């Protein structure tokens, strides 16, 4: 989906937001394309919530401009913007039924009651809610059902862009996994632009066309889930993605990489970054293999298996090499069969590892 050129629906141009001396957003520039599913990911304090408040119109930026379809909307209040947000708390109206909640934006636009009801029933069906829920008090719905009502209400508004502020964070794991997929399906069905905020890169991976990774008020990297996964631009992004093995390395004159930490040298991947003396080598757990006698790999390390964690279809191992613990992940069918605390040889191909810039 990344290849097709689409028109820009929302443009952020050098947005800053300061609270006193503190810059919550520090020069954010970003183009959001029509119909894409963009997820903004960052740890707490990264400024993602501040950003979404500006985009929705609940707050104005200190500097820079926001353009919605080419029009500057910096100071347009939320109720005058053709965008809509699903809140973290969902913000359903507790004194109204499911139907009344969904119809709220239509009622404000003075849509006649018959049409309102018809549209609400359509949305109830689209969100896989039973039709009889129309008259149900919204506070009697379960967490997942309330999610769907909140989504239906936002869709009833028929926004140009739909914003999400971590709406799934309060749900249990299984329900969250299910709703992530449903949300992505809904995105395809409706063709709307979705902008989603979360602290979970995993959640972002499942749903997004593009991911923007934020840290202390700046965007660290923006790209497709594949790009972020395979080619993180720095250590922060790589670590944010979950468990990776990172080595501080020095580029030796012979073109190999020295790892002072464990006193070995490793083959260099093709992705050489400029001419830097020090860098970080990233090796994902799933590219590391256990090497049997006679098997070869570009990079080989000797260590001991400390522990084994069964993850379902995959099995993870912690392998101690020198003073460092590496994470190795294998599919269940070629899991390690030896005993714990015995010596093993592990290795990977240089092209599966990646050299990251010196960044922090």
């Amino acid at each position, binding site marked *: 989906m990344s290849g097709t050129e689409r028109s820009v629906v929302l443009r952020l141009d050098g947005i800053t937001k300061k609270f006193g001396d503190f810059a919550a957003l520090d020069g954010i520039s970003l183009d959001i394309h029509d119909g894409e599913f963009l997820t903004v990911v960052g740890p707490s304090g990264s400024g993602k919530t501040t950003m979404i408040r500006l985009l929705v119109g609940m707050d104005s930026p200190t500097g820079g401009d926001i353009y919605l379809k080419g029009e500057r909307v910096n100071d347009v209040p*939320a109720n005058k913007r053709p965008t809509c947000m699903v*809140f973290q708390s969902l913000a359903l109206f*507790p004194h109204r039924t499911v139907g009344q909640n969904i119809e709220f934006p239509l009622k404000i636009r003075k849509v006649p009651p018959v049409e309102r009801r018809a549209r609400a029933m359509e949305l109830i069906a689209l969100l896989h809610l039973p039709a009889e829920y129309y008259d149900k008090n919204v506070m009697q719905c379960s967490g997942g059902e309330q999610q769907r009502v909140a989504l239906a209400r936002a869709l009833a508004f028929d926004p140009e862009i739909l914003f999400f502020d971590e709406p799934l964070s309060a749900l249990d794991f299984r329900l969250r996994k299910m709703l992530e997929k449903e949300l992505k399906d809904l995105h395809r069905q409706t063709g709307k632009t979705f902008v989603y905020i979360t602290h979970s890169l995993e959640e972002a991976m499942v749903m997004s066309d593009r991911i923007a990774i934020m840290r202390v008020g700046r965007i660290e990297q923006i790209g497709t889930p594949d790009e972020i996964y395979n080619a993180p631009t720095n250590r922060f992004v790589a670590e944010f993605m979950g468990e990776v093995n990172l080595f501080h390395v020095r580029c030796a004159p012979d073109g190999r990489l020295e790892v002072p930490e464990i006193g070995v040298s490793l083959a260099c991947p093709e992705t050489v970054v400029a001419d830097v003396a020090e860098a970080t080598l990233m090796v994902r757990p799933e590219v590391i293999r256990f090497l049997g006698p006679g098997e070869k790999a570009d990079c080989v390390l000797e260590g001991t298996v400390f522990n084994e964690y069964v993850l379902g279809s995959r099995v993870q191992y912690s392998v101690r090499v020198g003073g460092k613990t590496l994470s190795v992940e294998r599919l269940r069918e070629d899991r390690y069969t030896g005993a714990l605390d015995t010596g093993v040889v592990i290795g990977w191909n240089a092209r599966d590892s990646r050299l990251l810039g010196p960044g922090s």
Partner: protein
Amino acid sequence: MRKSLRRAGLLSSLPILALLALVFVAPLLVVLGFSVMPTKTFTLLQWPTLENFGTIVGQTYYKSLLWSLGLSLATVVALLLICYPLAFAMAKVFGVFTNVITVLVVLTLFVSENIRLFGWVLVFMKGGLLSGTLKAWLGLEIGSLLYNVPVTVFGLVYVYFPFMLFPLTLGISMVPDELRHAAADLGASRWTVLREIDLPLAMPGILVGCMLTFVLCTGAMLESKLLGGQKVIVMADEIETAFTYGQNWPLGSALSVVLISLIGMIAVFVLRRIDLDQILGKT
């Protein structure tokens, strides 16, 4: 098991029930009893009669009753209009400053109503604080502002202000900000947010404030006496007169019974029309 628990509960609540029966229910029953005794008698040991109620219907007590209800209604409306913005600010805007206001308002309750109303008499009387100042500084002659209906309502509004303000503040603080934001985000104007979100969700507080002030106002008489100069006679005043100057306990009791049952009916009517559970989202 459950049965014995219930009995234990009943037993342990017995002392307080007895106390309530003695100091709350018994006097009401005595009033009810006296209301059906022959006029100007002082014992309950007589044949019941409805002559007191006949007297009430025959004379012009309905005027006092209407004044009581009218003044109360006017006071409640005025209080609602004055207190809502302030309560909103106290619940959502002022922050720490809210505590200062709370303390200041509560402090006024430490001074007796009598004295506070006399203070206002000194302000409004001819040559008092207000007219004296205006005359000295601007040469304006406004005379006395006392002894009329508006100043009576002013007195009621002033005295019962805290009883509207605090329930309202509580009610408004129960409305989550996010709901207001969400409604605005869905395109609602400020007025729509007020009508669709704020008012319905703050309704328990609004109702409690209105009921409380209304009931207190119908039982009030100092305002109409001191500030209103008995320009209008309210029901509470009539009751007091019957018990004291009139030495007519049965008539006073009958008037009390009429007032109590009327207010009771209004309270039940209001509380029934509006389902508190539904407002609180618990149906």
